[in-house]
Every structure is written in C-alpha cells, then in structure tokens.
C-alpha cells in the first residue's frame, strides 16, 4: 500500500500511459478491487454466522451492540473523509500548511475511530463476548478488526505524507500521491458504512 506513496520516484514515463490514467492510481484501483473481495468474504461469513450465537445469554447481535456509541464513531470516520478531501484540495493548489493541517486532522479522526473500536472491544469482552464465544463473535471480531487494521494502515500512510511534507519532499507536483492515499482512505470509509449497516443496524432490528 505505501508503495503507492513512493510511486513518483519511478522512472519517468516515455509517453502518456495507454489508458491515460497514471500507473499508481490505476494500481490503487486494482488493489481496491481486490479489497472488495476481501471484505465481501468477511462480510459474507458474518452474515452466515449472525444467528450462530451458541445460545449464549446476552451475546447476540440484538443485545450486545451499543448503536448510539458506534453511530458517533461512524460519524467521526465519515468526517475524516471530508478532511481528506480538504487535504487533497489544499495540496492541489499548493497550500502546504493547510494540507498538513488537514492530513493530520484526517489521521487524528481515524485514530479517534480506532480508539472507539478498541474501547468497544473492551466493553464487549467485559460483557462476556470473546473470540471463542460463538461463530457470531468470531466473525464479528475478525471482520471489524481487519477493518481496523486497514484504518491503521491508512493512518500510517497519512502520517508518512505529513512527514514527507514537513521534510519538503511532497511538492504540489506530487499531489497525485495524496490523491491515491485519499482513494484508499475513502474506500476504507465506504467499507465501514457497509459494515455499520450490515453488522450493527440491520441485525438489531431483526
């Protein structure tokens, strides 16, 4: 993933690319296509096991989730997409200070989301919901933690961009790198919208 941030160091193209889309951006889209299958398989597993609760009292999708809390952290993550857009817009017009503020803000919002997820996990474990409780809990933890890992990778890439910018290594001409990281970040957000709907909202209404 972070190789895309390094992309501009590759050999200069001899001519325009055949499809007109830069290689790095195309590579990111290909990766996102692959990631769709990854999360698709995780979400499908969750849907298969959503009812497989092993009859453990209190650890069911209807009872365990705290919808208001997760709604807030979802909102935080969605706002990080907004700040990502603002960061890209800033570097595209060469306003480096504004870019650094918004990229750091995006990373911070992502970190708040991750903190919320970790807090949520500790609450669940305290209520007796662990990886081993039932197939439902296994599917929940593995799905949401893999999404969390993706957010963490995104935070790492944003911090790398911020550091590059501080070192003066991310000029306006390399705004494409930020755009690629943004693509990844928005994708991870969109996946969370699906997860929030499918994992939290729909089962709680069943």
């Amino acid at each position, binding site marked *: 993933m*972070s*190789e895309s*941030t*390094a*992309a*501009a*160091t*590759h*050999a*200069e*193209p*001899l*001519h325009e*690319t*055949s*499809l007109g*889309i830069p*290689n790095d951006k*195309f*590579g990111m889209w*290909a*990766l996102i*296509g*692959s*990631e769709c*299958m*990854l999360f698709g*398989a*995780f979400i499908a*597993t969750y849907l*298969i*096991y959503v009812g*497989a609760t*092993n009859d453990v009292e209190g650890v069911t999708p209807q009872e365990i989730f705290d919808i208001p809390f997760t709604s807030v952290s979802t909102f935080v993550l969605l706002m990080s997409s907004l700040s990502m857009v603002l960061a890209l817009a800033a570097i595209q017009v060469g306003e480096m200070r504004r870019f650094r503020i918004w990229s750091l803000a995006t990373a911070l919002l992502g970190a708040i989301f991750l903190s919320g997820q970790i807090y949520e996990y500790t609450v669940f474990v305290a209520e007796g919901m*662990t*990886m*081993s*409780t*039932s*197939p439902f*809990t*296994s*599917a929940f*933890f*593995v799905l949401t933690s*893999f999404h969390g890992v993706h957010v963490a990778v995104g935070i*790492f890439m944003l911090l*790398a961009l911020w550091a*590059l910018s501080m*070192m003066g*290594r991310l000029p306006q001409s390399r705004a494409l790198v930020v755009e690629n990281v943004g693509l990844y970040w928005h994708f991870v957000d969109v996946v969370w919208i699906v997860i929030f709907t499918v994992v939290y909202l729909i089962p709680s209404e069943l």
Partner: protein
Amino acid sequence: MTAVAEKRHTGTSLFRRPTATTGFWSWVTTVDHKKIAVMYFVTSFFFFCVGGVEALVIRAQLARPENAMVSADVYNQIFTMHGLTMIFLALMPLAVAFFNYLIPLQIGARDVAFPRLNMFAYWIYLFGGLFIYSSIFFSGMPDGGWFGYAPLSSLVGPDPTGASAVSVEAANQIHMRRMLFYSVGLQIVGLSSLMGAINFIVTILNMRAPGMTLMRMPIFMWMTLVTAFLLLFSLPIIAVALFQLMFDVRYGANFFNPAAGGDPVLWQHMFWLFGHPEVYILIMPSFGIVSETLPVFSRKPLFGYSAMVFSGIAIGFLGFGVWAHHMFAVGLGPVANTAFGLTTMFIAVPTGVKIFNWLGTLWGGRLRFTTPMLFGIGLVSMFTIGGLSGVTHAVVPHNWQQTDTYYVVAHFHYVLFGGAVFGLFSGAYYWFPKITGRMLSERLGKVHFWLMFVGFNLTFAPMHILGLNGMPRRIYTYADGMGWDFWNVVSTVGSYLIALAILVFIANVVLSLRRGEVAGNDPWDARTIEWLTTSPPPPHNFDVIPQVSSRDEVWHRKYAVETEHGPARVPAGGSGEPSAAGGSPAAERRAPGDPGGGPITADTASSSPAADTTATHAPAEGIHMPSPSYYPLVATIGIPIIGYGVILTGVASWVLIGVGAFITIAGLFGWAIEPSAEEHH
C-alpha cells in the same frame, strides 16, 4: 524527478541506493524485470524438483501393496507438500517468471509499472516458500492436504509418532502447529501473487508501445491479463479463509469447528471459490504460451485470435461460477448440484473453442516439429484428455462414483501436468534463446519431450483405471489382492521416466548455456516484438520503442503480403520492396539461427517516429532506468518473522510479531522516501 531534486534528497536515505550491475548484490537489489524473472525461473524450478522428489516418494510407496517404506504420518506430509509445492511454489511462480520476462518485451515497455514492487513480490515468494518448508524443523510439515479441509486443518491426523505413547492432546498440538504453517505460509505466498497481479494488470493495460491496441497484443499478453485478474479477485477469498483458519487454530475462533457451532462446509466453499479460479490461473499461462508457439511453427497466424481472446475472458468469468463441483459429495442438495453441474459443462465450451482454434492454427500450416512445437502439441492433446475426463466430473452421479478416487488424480494431472507443465516447457524451449542468447539443444530437447510424454502417460493414464476400480486417493498404502497391483507398478515406472526426462532437461540447460548455438535476435522466425531486440535484451529492452501497426508485428515487418496471388509471403528485404515473384520456399525459409537482423532493424528505425539515429544498436545514452533498491528485501525480512510469531506461543509470539512488523514498516517507509537515484550514471 529532476536531477536537482535527486541531489538534494540523496542524503536522507538510510542506505545508499545500490549501483552494482554485476555480481551478487546486483541480483539482490535489482529491479530489472528480466533479472527478477531469471530468479523466479531458478527458484520455481528448484521447488518444482523438490515437489517432483516428493512425488517420487509417493509413487515408490504406492508401487506395491502394504508397503512400509514411509509411515502414514510421513506420507500425509509428503502428499500435502507435493500439492502445495507444485501449485503455489512451482507452477504459479514459473508462470510469473514468464510474465515477468515477457510482459515488457511483448508490449514494448522498458520495465513493469512498479519495479520495486516486483522485487518485493519475488522476495516474499522466496521467503514464503522457505517459511513453509521450515516447518520441517518444528513439528513436521503440513499434513492436512493442500485443500486443508476442517477438521483435518487443525486437530485430526494420524498419530505423528506411530504407535508410541504421545497423548491425544500432544498429538493435536502437533497437527495444529503443522497446519498453522499451512495457513500462514500460504498467506505469505498469496501476498506475493497479489502484488504481482496488480503490477501485471497495470503494466499490460497502461504501458503498451505506441500503436499496440488491445487487439494487437500478443495472445500471451491477453492470457496473462486474464490470469492476473483471476488472481486479483480470487486471492482475497483464500486470504480470508486462511485468516479464519489461522484464528481458529491459534486464537480460539469458531469458524470451522462444528463442535463450537462452526461450519466446515464454509471452508470448502471459500477454498474452492478460490481453488477453481486457481485451476485456470495455472493453465491460462500455458494456453497463452502455446498460442504463441503453435502459429510460429505452423507459419500461420493464430487461427481465430478474437475468439481466443474472448474465450479466455469467458473462462475467466465462468471460472468463478463452478466451484461447488468440487463439493458434489458434500450434500448441497439437488438444486445446487444441478446448477453447478451445468455451469461446469458450460465452461467446457470456451475451452473447446480454444482447442479447435489450435487445431485450426495447425491445419494447413507448414509445420516445423521443433521441441517447443512438440510440447505445444503435447499440451493440446493431453489437455484434451484431461478436459474430457473433467466433463465427466460435471455429471453428478458419475462424480459421486469418482469422488476421492484416483480417477480424479488422473484428471487433474492431465490438465495440470499434461496441460500446464507441457505448455511451460514449450515456452522454456521457445524463449530460452531470447533469455540467454543461446539455443537449447534440439536433440536433447526431443529426447526430453518423448521421455516425458511416455513417462507422463504411463504415470497418469493407469490412474483412470485404478480410480474406476475404486482405489481411493490420499491413502498411504492399500491391501493386497484388490487388483490394483499391476497398474500401480506401471504408474511408478512412468514417474521415474518423468524424473529422467527432467534430468535430461537440466543437462540440456547446463550444456546449452556453455556451448549452445548462438541464437541471434530471431532464431525461430517469430511474430511478436520481443524478437526485435537482441538476445539477451539490453537492460532497457529496446533501443527504440517499436511503433506497432499490426498484430504479428514482426512478421509483417519481415514479410510483405502478396495480396493478388493469395497468401504467398515474400521476404520484405532491406530495400523495402517486396519481391514480385511470390515467395519461393527457399526464399521464404529462414534457418533457425538466422537473425534476419538487417531488414528488421532498418524497418524498426524507419517506422518509429522517435528514431532519429541511424544506428539502432547505439548504446542507450539518456534512457533512465529505475535504480536498484535494498528496501524490498528489508521490508520482506519482517514478514516471515511475523509468521513465526503467529506460530510460537507466549511472550515470544508477541515479541516476534512486533519485531517483524517494525522491520516491515520501517522497510516500507524507507522505500517511500527513497530518492529515485544515487547519482546519474
């Protein structure tokens, strides 16, 4: 990046950017797709031999009934590792070696889109393969089959110490650790293939030479593209399944454990939803290779190029809709079984289209029975047998009869050995001159082919009979008097003939590298643009990127088509004027080894808008190639450390995971801020 920017950034990197162009470090740090491809060739051929030796052990054990050469426990490890090695460590990377070498050469590019990612993928593959085999130093190699069905993937297996006094608990621990090497090791190898797929897709679609439209691409590029898309969309599915298995075995999750409410059939669905596209991932490259070699040695264009392209795409799509035919005996019910039986029969249609197109290519051609041609025809004929027995699997009642018998083993070896391996050898003989500059010996090549062809059929044809007579697969021995003795002996003899054939091939490579006939640019009188450049090609591939104006570009540069007198072709000649007399066979015929260089390069220069120099072989001043780098290797080193961290328990586990993650992240960060070149050379 400008030279000024490079200079300013030179000091910020941990390592100086390596500059060696020869010797050990030039290989370790290279980002040249050709060098990486050679490393892929050597590594994957090594694993191919390892997997072959495992096959020989299997055949020796099964040569006679109630044989005690190896124990049940060892046998389980050997047959599991034979499957894993041949599929993930030999055939897939062998195909990747061809992709790596040929993609930039066939589309007219200087390198792949992401050269360092390419090297990263190679290192991860190598370390992943060594990681899986390092299990031998822990508590034994994976022993649950390459398919890893739950609960074989965790708890169940023969007592690893024979009849000794190991507790059930201890035996379970041993099996769990063995299959952790399976789930973690395949995950690592899969990561490599995923990065390769992204790299190849972007390169093929985005870096084609001017004039090379999609429908002018060599057919091998199309098959590569389909393979890369299959990898892109099927690998994440097995990644998810392997992660879930890993969490099951190591962290107490309940995905596939029926005792805790999990569903073992879910594993089977996910495994085969990857596993069936994987079959096409293995065979598509070979389809592409013979679609290159058959036209060259038939002296005809590929019959039905568009049909070949679209049937390849159709196989790619349908390949995702047939997985449950591996599970007919699971009990999915008549509706699912019927639906998947039908889709399985459908997929025979585009495959049949390909076979008829190859026949159409051969039909009426002036055939040259060179070694690549023999292997190409070997693929067409042997794959057809395997394809037909495959269609019999689509018939559900028939399938129930064959499930878990040697009939299935016969079938998939006919498609994967008779198909994929024959195709890869066709490509090896065909492109060896381009890669090394020397021809492989035709005489030894033909010995190799016939030994392999006979040995292959002796090994696997009897398995049809054994299977239909009820011999089950995956058993380490069988009782006397079942009527299986004779054909098992035949099969074992055949397998040792194959081993002999491989030795002939190795001898051929070693001898030809030293004393082989010098190839020249275009020894086969070929059709595609990799034959325009020197053998071996310079680091930048083409001094002048060719301007492409037709499919079979090189053919059209060499031969002008005489339209009024039918299909007769004549040498275009250095003057650029086609001979009026029509092609006499003598004029048309170019002996192998004749570079045919003069007219080709003259044409190259005149038809390329960028060619303002007269000498096309001038040294490549001013062509900037990506610099070598240490970081792909650095980032890779952390990955198996994470893997061992998952397998070990206690504090060591978290320490290793932490250290591995730190090394990998540091490597990737160094990669990200690495300046583009140390100095301008």
